[in-house]
Structure formats: structure tokens, C-alpha cells
């Protein structure tokens, strides 16, 4: 009888260990699929950034106007958050011309400092729109947006914050029932909100 009990306890402890290991492996797997994708400079006082300018985005998508579209949404969302003031686009463009920035979508640290001296802004946001539009997976169709942003301070030209996000795509429901996924407008809004939350967290 005591022998049977010992065997039972060994079996149950083994079972528990196996279940826990599987759960841990699963959780690790989940974490690998959803990286936070955020960098924050630990020495930076983000409270000092009150005014930012948003430069034109690098547009790697097939839609030519997608960069401007997402930039507009981001500017209004940043203003609406109440966290920072965003310099009007016209002033930003004037600053870019005055600072003679060759590629406004990817400025160098020196150019950022120069731009900051022309336009009284504490930070400059640049971005890359990696994907914007329809994606296909077999017969299923969905919309996807993939965007990354960088915040650079104008005093040193250093990157103090960087984050990326991807929203939309073809989900299991889309594969099973079709439907075309969420509208482009909705996922754009979600992606921008996600990045702003990462900035203000």
C-alpha cells in the first residue's frame, strides 16, 4: 500500500511539473510573438518635451499617399492627447527648407539640432510606414498597417524613444468566415493610439 501511494505521488508530481513546463513554454512562445518593440532612454526627462514636430514619413508601402495620411492622423492624435503641442506642417516644412535637410524623412543628428534652432521645438518625430493596405493569405484578405516612430531631442539630436506597432492582418476568423478584416481607417487609428500609449506610458 505505501508503495502504491509513493508511485501515485511521483506520478502526480510529474504530471504537475509537465503541465507547468508546457504552460511556461506556451507563455514564452506568446511573448516571442508579441514583443513590446519599444526603446526609452532611461536618462531622458520626457516631461521637458512640450513641443514636437512631425517630419514626413518614409513610405515603404504601395500607397503613395499613405505616409501623409498616417502623419495627419498622428499629428491630430498627439494634439488631442493633450500631452504635447505639435508645430503646424507649414512651419515644419519651412524649417526643413531653412535647415537645408536633404532627406526630411531621415535626418542626421546635426540636421535635427539645426532644425530645432529654427523652429522652437523640443523634439522631432520621424517615422517609417512599412506596410499599409491589403494583405492576402490564401483566399483570405485583410488590411494591415505597420508603423515605427522615433523621437529625437533637438538639443543633442539623439534618439530618446522608439517604438513600432503592427495592426490588422488576416485573423483566424477571416480565414474561416472571410469578411475582409477591419477597415483601414480603424486599424490606422488603433496603430497610432498604440504608439501614443507607448510614448506616454
Amino acid at each position: 500500500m505505501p508503495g502504491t501511494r509513493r508511485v501515485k505521488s511521483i506520478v502526480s508530481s510529474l504530471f504537475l511539473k509537465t503541465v507547468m513546463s508546457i504552460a511556461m513554454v506556451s507563455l514564452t512562445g506568446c511573448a516571442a510573438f508579441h514583443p513590446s518593440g519599444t526603446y526609452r532612454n532611461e536618462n531622458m526627462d520626457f516631461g521637458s518635451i512640450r513641443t514636437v514636430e512631425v517630419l514626413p514619413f518614409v513610405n515603404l508601402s504601395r500607397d503613395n499617399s499613405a505616409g501623409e495620411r498616417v502623419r495627419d492622423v498622428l499629428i491630430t492624435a498627439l494634439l488631442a492627447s493633450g500631452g504635447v503641442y505639435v508645430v503646424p506642417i507649414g512651419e515644419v516644412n519651412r524649417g526643413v527648407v531653412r535647415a537645408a535637410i536633404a532627406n526630411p524623412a531621415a535626418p542626421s543628428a546635426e540636421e535635427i539640432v539645426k532644425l530645432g534652432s529654427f523652429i522652437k521645438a523640443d523634439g522631432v518625430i520621424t517615422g517609417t510606414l512599412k506596410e499599409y493596405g491589403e494583405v492576402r493569405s490564401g483566399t483570405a484578405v485583410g488590411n494591415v498597417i505597420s508603423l515605427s516612430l522615433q523621437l529625437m531631442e533637438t538639443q543633442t539630436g539623439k534618439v530618446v524613444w522608439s517604438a513600432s506597432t503592427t495592426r490588422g492582418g488576416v485573423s483566424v476568423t477571416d480565414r474561416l468566415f472571410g469578411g475582409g478584416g477591419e477597415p483601414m481607417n480603424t486599424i490606422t487609428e488603433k496603430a497610432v493610439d498604440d504608439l501614443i500609449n507607448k510614448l506616454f506610458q
Partner: protein
Amino acid sequence: MISSISSSNRFVLVVLTGLFLCVGCAGPRGMAETMQRPEKGSYRIAIFPVENLSGGKAPLKELRLSLAEKIKTAGFDVLPDDSLNKFLARHRIRYIGGIDGESARDMAEEEQVQAVLIPSLEYYDDSYPPKIALTARLVSTAGEPEILWMDSIALSGNDSPGLFDTGLIRDPAKLTDKAFRELTRSLSDSFGGGFRVSVDQLLKKKFPPRQFYRSDLAPDKQFRIVVLPFYNRSDRKNAGEIMALHFVQELRRLGNFTVVEPGMVRHHLLQYRLIMEGGVTNANADVIYDVLQANVLLTGRVIDYQDGRGETGVPTVDFSVTMLDKEHHMIVLAADSYNTGDDRVHFFDFGRISTAYGVAIEMIRGIMDRIDMQRGTPAVEGGGRIAPNH
């Protein structure tokens, strides 16, 4: 018997006296009103040729004639076509989407015209279902041109199909006639009310903006606003001008915004050679504020402005708007909107909007609702809310 007669006589006498008194009270007030306001017949209007913003072909001459006919029927004195054409040729006026101060003065002096009606055609499609969208505004010629009345209409033949499609309008002429009747009625009503702006018109269906920011728009302050044509990034021709016109119309309805006549804005932009390719700079804005005595400026960008083609086409509108103020050189309002004609459809096409005009107007009303001063939306305090690292 005698007593009953005398009592009924007394009753009749009292009623008659009351009636006379009432008539006596009403009489002078009515007379005073008619003395203050000119009669429609003596109010001379010049109807400009229809500005075609539709980006396609449209029977502009016929549309103008039909509109002029309706306005004449409503009792207004319309400047004859010959006189108008001679005036336009004499003064080499080629832009018909607005009027500047000098042209307005000349028109008042030479043709004794009190106001100019400027119709702008936004959309015209005569294939089934026929569609028309038109904006019209009346601009005074006395002194500085001022918008006295502005309204717009968009109709589609299948707006209200009714039972067994009995409500369908298949004839484009019938639809145009209906649209012009509505516009003329609005003009007549506004004339009757001394061109006062009705704030009640804001209380209609609207789409709230996707993102909205407002700050420093004091509720007790009067604003003189310049609406610049929007940057058009859409595939639709003239979408920037169309969107600017919609904002002019809706901003007027807020009550504390005096909108500068777009013809004046265009004239000064050309006169001072203001080219704003990448957006409005503070230097450009300063010139505009000074020459047009304005204290706020509105500009924006149209990303998408699509009218639904045919019976099943869904209109789509996407734009962003920014308001800058003179005092601080800062953005005081920013909004971003995106909607489609079937956003409010839940079943059987109920709530469907068939024109881009209809969608755009409801989107703008959603923004106007947020800046409506009476409601006192709390202003956003800007600055420094990014949490510091710990």
C-alpha cells in the same frame, strides 16, 4: 328679450373692440418691418455663371438659367444676362467662384446690384440614379463683400424610393428643379428674416471626428476667419475648394464666426503672391491676417473625396483640418475625420448617404458641434505630459 339682445350686442362690441385693438397693435409693427427691409422686387441680384467644381461635364448654362428662373419667380429682381455678360467682359472677370471688393463695388455702382449670387456645382450625374450637389451663396456688394446667405443641397434620384419605387426620380431635370426650388426657398426665407443665421440648423445628424483637439477658443470672442482652399491629395478634382466651401457654410452657422468671402481671400493670395506649397507658415499667415483683418485661419488637407457611382457606390470622405490663431501663432483646433456613406447602415440600406457632399457635411457638423461655443467644450491644456522616467 331686450336685455338678452343688449347683452349679446355688448359682447359683440367688446369682441370687435378687442379685434380693432389687436389690428392696431399689429399694423405699425408690420409697417416698420417693411420699411426697414427692402422688398424682394427692389432687391437686385446678379447671378454669376455656375462654377463647375464637379470635375466633369455638366449643362452649366441650363442649370444657371433654371436657377435664375426660380429666383425670378420667388420675386427677386435678377440682373439680365446681357448686362451681366457685358459687365464681366468689361472688367475682365474670369474667376466666377467668388467676388473681390473692387468688382463688388463696380457692380453696385454700374449695375445697381445689391448682391451677387455665386453658385458652385459640386457634383452632377445624369445617368440613373441622377445626382446633383450644389452650393450657392449671396454676397453683398455694398462696401466690403460679405456673405449674406449660404446654403447647399445634394439630391440623388434614389434618396427616397418609397413603396414599390414610386418615389424614385429618374429625370435629371426633375431632380435639378427640386434642388433649385429648395435653395430658392432657403434664400427667400433668409431674406425674409433679414439674412440672420439660424443656429438651429446645427442640430442635425452628424459624424463625430476621428481625432479632435481644441484650445484657446474663447466662447465670448468674435472671430473673423479666413478659410483657405484645402490641399487636395485625393483623386477628385477640386476637392480642396469643395471642402473649403463646406467649412465656410458651416462656420457661419456657429454665430460668432464671421467668414471672409472666399473671392476676397483668393484675390489677396494672388495680389501678395502667397504660395503655400508645403502648408501655411507663420509669415504667410501674418500677411493674411493683416490684409483681411482676420484673427483666425483655417486650412486642411483632403485625402479622399469620392462620390459613389451608380446605385450601389459608397461615397467616402477623409480629411484633416487645422485652425491657427493670430495671437499665439498656434494651432487652436485640429480635427481628423474619415467616414463613408454606409457608416450608419445597419440593415436594408436604412441610413445610407448617397453623395460625398452628404457625408462631408455631416462630418463637418460633427466638428462644428465640438467647437460650438455655447456648449463650452473644455479646452485641452497643452504641454509636458510625457511621463518622466523613474
